[in-house]
């Protein structure tokens, strides 16, 4: 049952393969094409989380200092406040990642901001022990070497520092040395970090083009010949879609001129670039989609197979 999509593969044509796309076939037999988070996004998410944690820590420290000044150094109160501060710090660094990743969104605020989430590599349920595992390793990857670096006790620590830096760099750069961008924690836990962006459903460019067709009708009769429509393929169509969505005047002009040159279109007296592109997009898409229905996907303009 999971093999069903393959039977269709020659018809659909291979989806645009990218280095970071991975297969995730749902039990219904549809491949969702997961996109892995890139190393830069992972780093940015971590820095965001670190900044949030430092922020909380600063507040905690300020409260502790305030409480100490309030207590006025009587007896053992300052020490007790310090101990509470230490416990708070310990809890913060251990619980922050685990608690957020245990929620249904499976992402810390930093990951959420970048549209990432943690997922099980085998496509199954993200279990609690996997989350514990990937974050227990974080302790080794980040906090342990950091505490090595921070806690200088005597002079022979230069070697220890060096070791700490080497240790740290092995873990930090580990994701760059495997194709799935796995952290050591991901490796141990059997997880990976994928993109799970929330997209809004945008209006169909073809529909807006269709709606404005009547308005542009006065500018000329946009009837394209078969040969003119065969000048481009799917890739160019989607570039044109982007151009029409962004509606930057200079790009629209440049693209319209390019296309006119390519298909040998003579510009009408009052024809606007926008009207031309709209009409061409609509016609090109109708042509390509009707060929798609007959099992022929034209990838780009170089794809000349019948």
């Amino acid at each position, binding site marked *: 049952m999971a093999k069903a999509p393959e039977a269709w593969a020659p018809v659909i044509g291979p989806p645009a393969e990218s280095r970071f796309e991975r297969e995730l076939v749902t039990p219904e037999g549809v491949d969702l094409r997961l996109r892995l988070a890139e190393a830069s996004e992972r780093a940015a998410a971590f820095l965001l989380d670190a900044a949030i944690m430092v922020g909380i820590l600063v507040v905690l420290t300020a409260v502790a200092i305030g409480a100490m000044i309030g207590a006025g150094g009587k007896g053992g109160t300052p020490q007790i406040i310090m101990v509470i501060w*230490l416990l708070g710090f310990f809890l913060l660094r251990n619980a922050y990642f685990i608690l957020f990743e245990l929620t*249904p969104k499976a992402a810390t605020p930093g990951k959420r901001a970048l549209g990432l989430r943690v997922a099980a590599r085998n496509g199954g*349920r993200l279990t609690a022990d996997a989350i514990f595992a990937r974050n*227990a390793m974080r302790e080794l990857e980040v906090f342990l070497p950091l505490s090595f670096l921070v806690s200088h006790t005597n002079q022979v620590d230069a070697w220890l520092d060096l070791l700490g830096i080497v240790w740290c760099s092995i873990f930090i750069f580990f994701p760059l040395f495997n194709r799935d961008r796995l952290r050591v924690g991901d490796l141990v836990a059997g997880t990976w970090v994928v993109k799970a962006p929330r997209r809004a459903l945008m209006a169909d460019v*073809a529909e807006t083009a269709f709606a404005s067709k009547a308005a542009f009708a006065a500018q000329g009769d946009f009837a394209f010949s078969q040969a003119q429509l065969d000048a481009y393929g799917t890739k160019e169509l989607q570039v044109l879609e982007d151009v029409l969505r962004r509606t930057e005047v200079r790009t629209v002009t440049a693209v319209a001129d390019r296309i006119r040159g390519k298909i040998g279109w003579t510009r009408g007296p009052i024809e606007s670039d926008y009207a031309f592109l709209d009409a061409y997009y609509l016609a090109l898409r109708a042509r390509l989609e009707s060929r798609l229905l007959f099992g022929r996907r034209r990838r780009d303009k170089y794809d000349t197979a019948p």
Partner: protein
Amino acid sequence: MAELRLKSFRFRAEREADWLRLDALLSKAEARSAAALSDDELLAVPVLYRSSLSSLSVARATSLDRALIDYLESLCTRAYFFVYGTRSSALERIGGFFARDWPAAAKAAWRETLVCAILTVLGAVAAYVLVMHDPEWFYAFVPQGLVEGRGPDASTAALRATLFDSQHNQLLSVMATFLFTHNAGVALLAFALGFAFCLPSALLMVDNGCVLGAFLAVFVHHGLGVEVGGWLMIHGVTELFATMLAGAAGFRIGTALAFPGELTRMESVSQAGRSAAVLMGGVMVMLFCAGILEGVGRQLIQVTWVRYAIAVSSGVIWITYLYAPRATKVAVSHG
């Protein structure tokens, strides 16, 4: 006129309402939790999810609207994680950790834990014998930072003072060392170094035992054997147990890496890693308790037999909690 409307657009117009409804339900559930959905909504999600998946297949095959396909992919992925993902809240899952996962992981690693215990005891006995024989050995076993005036040269009175001392600054320094250096460090290293085929973890266990043995020898030499036992064991039972469990977790990863059996090495490591990490989560909790016992309990309780009582009861509590058979055996879910 009508024939110019694209088929792909008519397809979209027919199904758009379902997608938007699913989108709204998912947003609602993600913002709070699955409990935010009413029964009807909860039942609607899987149905809408499947129809969206079919829309995605159709769109991939017939539509050239890039934005539409991107939208459907992201919608279906979100819905997939919701439908096939976990529904329980973070708190429930943490409850499951204490009730089930942690004891199960500890039980599964009993052999490794036993090996770690034997190694620690061996180290302790060896160091004890050596230091009793020649006190100079003490400095070979105990790092400077831990001596704090408890070396073999100290007088009996000075040693006794380190055992019974109610100064409050002790509390802070002990807590600080707990949290940042020694105990958590040893436990984490024992776990981390398991990757190097167990050997460094084993050495750490022996080394930890040596420190213990050397300390004991110094105090026993001055006739403070019983007192030092109470001083060490009030938190030491918890702490040493935690260290051994950490070593066991490291051993599990190391052996999984060295002897993957029928699995691939990666799979074997990640399988062992999960149970080892659960164990480490437990170790952190134990170290936390040990830190509180050490920082607070030991300063407040200055009577040796009470210290022993706490030591024994903490040992009994940990062992019963971790190893006692559970009435209902629920298998740990592995996705």
